[in-house]
C-alpha cells in the first residue's frame, strides 16, 4: 500500500531508570516512499527508536506520527499501518512458514481466501515456496529473515520497519533482501525505516541516512551529502618495515589528522587538498619505505568518525562494554 504520510518525530526520547537516556530527543522527518537508514553501533538507540515508533514502547517524552497516526494516542491505527521485522527473526520453530503466514494474516483480519492468496504471493516473492511447508527449525538464517520480511508485509502495510534485517546473513541473501526492500519502496511506495550497523547497507540502500550515537542523531543526509560534508580523502600507508611505523605516523601528521584503522597501517585524513605525490616524495626524502599506499574518498565510517570521534567499529565495542555494565539498570520507567 502506498504511504502518503511518512514518519515524523519531534524530540522523541526514552529514558530508563537511573536517568539513562537510550534515545535523547531525536527529530525525524521521513518522506513517504523513502528508505531511511538509521546507522549506528550496538546500543546507540536504534532498536529503542524502532520500538517507540512501532508502539511497542511508550516514549518518556516527545511525539511522533507514523503513517499519519500518533504513536501514543493512536497505537492500534499505527499498528494496522505498519509492518515490522524486529532485530531477531522471532519465529516458532515448530510451525511451518505457511502456518506463520496463516497466523499473521488471520490475526490481521484477512479472509481465508485473501490469506491463501497473500501467503502464496509472498512466499513466491521471498523465494520460500518450496520450503513453505517445512518447520522453521530446518530453515537457515537467510530463510528466516526472508520469512520475517514476508510476515511483516502480509497485511500490505504502508510503512515498514526493519531492525538490522541483514545481520548474520551471507552476501547473497543480503543482496536479495536489499533488492526486495528497494522494490517495495520504489514500486509500491512503502516508506522504509531501516536500522543497520553496516555502512555498506546504509550506503547502497538508503535514500537518506541518519547517524545515531549515544541516543543523539549526529548527522543526517543522503550518503553522498554526508560523505561530501567530510570532503577530505584519507591516505593509508602500510610500512614496509614495522619499526618505521612511528616515524611514518609522525611524518604524515604534516598532511592531516590521524584516524583509527588497521593497527598495521598509518592513516590520516588530509587537511588540505592533498597530493599523493607530495606524500610519496616526503616519505622518500625521509628514507621511509612503504609496502603499500592508498588514498580513498570519504566513507560513511569517516563521517561517523568525524561526528563522534570514533569509528563505527570502535564505537560498537565501546557501547557493548557499557551495555554489559548497565544491563541490570535498564528497567523501563513508567511513561
Amino acid at each position: 500500500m502506498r504511504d502518503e504520510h511518512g514518519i515524523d518525530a519531534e524530540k522523541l526520547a526514552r529514558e530508563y531508570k537511573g536517568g539513562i537516556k537510550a534515545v535523547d530527543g531525536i527529530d525525524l522527518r521521513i518522506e513517504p516512499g523513502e528508505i531511511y537508514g538509521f546507522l549506528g553501533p550496538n546500543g546507540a538507540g536504534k532498536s529503542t527508536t524502532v520500538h517507540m515508533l512501532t508502539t511497542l514502547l511508550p516514549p518518556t517524552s516527545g511525539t511522533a506520527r507514523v503513517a499519519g497516526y500518533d504513536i501514543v494516542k493512536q497505537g492500534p491505527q499505527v499498528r494496522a499501518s505498519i509492518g515490522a521485522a524486529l532485530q531477531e527473526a522471532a519465529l516458532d520453530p515448530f510451525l511451518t512458514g505457511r502456518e506463520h503466514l496463516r497466523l499473521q494474516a488471520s490475526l490481521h483480519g484477512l479472509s481465508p481466501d485473501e490469506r491463501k492468496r497473500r501467503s502464496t504471493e509472498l512466499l513466491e516473492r521471498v523465494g520460500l515456496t518450496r520450503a513453505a511447508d517445512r518447520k522453521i527449525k530446518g530453515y537457515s538464517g537467510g530463510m528466516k529473515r526472508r520469512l520475517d520480511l514476508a510476515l511483516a508485509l502480509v497485511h500490505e502495510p504502508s510503512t515498514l520497519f526493519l531492525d538490522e534485517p541483514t545481520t548474520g546473513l551471507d552476501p547473497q541473501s543480503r543482496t536479495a533482501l536489499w533488492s526486495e526492500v528497494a522494490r517495495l519502496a520504489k514500486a509500491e511506495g512503502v516508506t522504509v525505516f531501516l536500522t543497520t550497523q553496516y555502512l555498506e547497507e546504509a550506503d547502497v540502500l538508503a535514500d537518506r541516512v541518519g547517524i545515531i550515537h549515544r541516543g543523539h542523531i549526529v548527522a543526517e543526509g543522503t550518503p553522498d551529502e554526508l560523505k561530501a560534508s567530510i570532503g577530505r580523502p584519507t591516505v593509508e600507508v602500510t610500512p614496509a618495515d614495522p619499526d618505521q611505523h612511528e616515524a611514518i605516523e609522525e611524518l604524515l601528521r604534516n598532511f592531516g589528522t590521524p584516524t583509527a584503522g588497521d593497527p598495521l597501517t598509518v592513516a590520516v585524513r588530509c587537511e588540505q587538498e592533498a597530493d599523493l605525490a607530495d606524500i610519496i616524495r616526503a616519505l622518500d626524502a625521509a628514507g621511509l619505505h612503504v609496502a603499500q599506499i592508498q588514498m580513498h574518498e570519504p566513507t560513511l565510517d569517516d563521517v561517523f568518525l568525524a561526528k563522534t570521534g570514533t569509528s563505527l567499529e570502535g564505537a560498537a565495542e565501546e557501547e557493548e562494554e557499557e551495555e554489559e555494565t548497565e544491563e541490570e539498570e535498564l528497567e523501563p520507567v513508567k511513561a
Partner: protein
Amino acid sequence: MTSSVHQVLEIARRSVVRTLRQPAQIIPNVTFPLLLLAINSNGLRAATHIPGFPSNSFLDFFIPIAFMQGALFASGTAGVDLARDIDNGFLNRLALTPLRGWALLLGQLGGAVALGAIQATVYLGAGIAAGVRFESGVAGAVLLYALAILIALGFGTLGILIALKTGSGEAVQSAFPLLFFLLFLSSMNLPRNLIAVGWFRDLATANPVSYMIEAMRSLVITGWDVQALVLGFLFTILMIAIGLFGSARLLKTRMART
C-alpha cells in the same frame, strides 16, 4: 479487525499444533504418572488394610493422582511455551497485530488443555483397563474427565503467570517442583482423616490441591459426593480465576503497546 473468538481460536490452534509436534514433551508427561500409578497401586496397597480406609483398591484410590500430575506437567508446558515467546520476541510479533491480550491468554492455554485432554484420555483408558471401577458410573467418569481438563487449565494459568512474571523458561521449570510440592503436601497418599501427624494433616487441609484430588476420588470410590465435588470445582475455578487475573495484569506490562 478480527473477532475475539477468532483470535482465541487462532492462538489456540498454534498452541495445540506446537504441543502435538513435541512428542518428547508429551510422552514423559503421559508415562511418568502412569508409572507412578502402577508402582504405588502395588507398593502401597497394604494401606487399604488401615481401619477406615475408604476403598479396598489402592488403584481406585490413587488414580486421581495421575490426573493431578498430568495437570502439573501441562502447567509447565504452557508456561515454558509462553516464556520462549517472550524471550525470542514472538510476543512482540503478536503485539504488533490487533490481537487482544485476553485472547492471547486464552488461546495460549489451548496447548495446556490439549495436553490435559490427551493425558486424561490415556489415564482414564489405562485405569479402566487395569480394573478401576467408577462408583458414580459413566457420568461420573465423564465428570472426572472434565474436572481433570479444568485442573490442567488451572495449573496452565499458573504456568503462564510465572512465565509472564519472569519471562524465562528456566524460571518456569524451576517453579515446577514447587507446584509438585503442593501435591505431596495434600491428601495424595492417605485420606486426611487418616493422616496421623497433626501438622501434615493441617497442611493437607489448608491445601486446595487436596480438594481437587478428593473431588475426583469421590467419583471413583464414593459415588456422588456433592460436597466433595463442589469444593473440588470451586477451588479449580478459583485457581483459574486467580491465574487469569494475575496473568492479565502482568500481560499489560509484557505486551506494553500504546
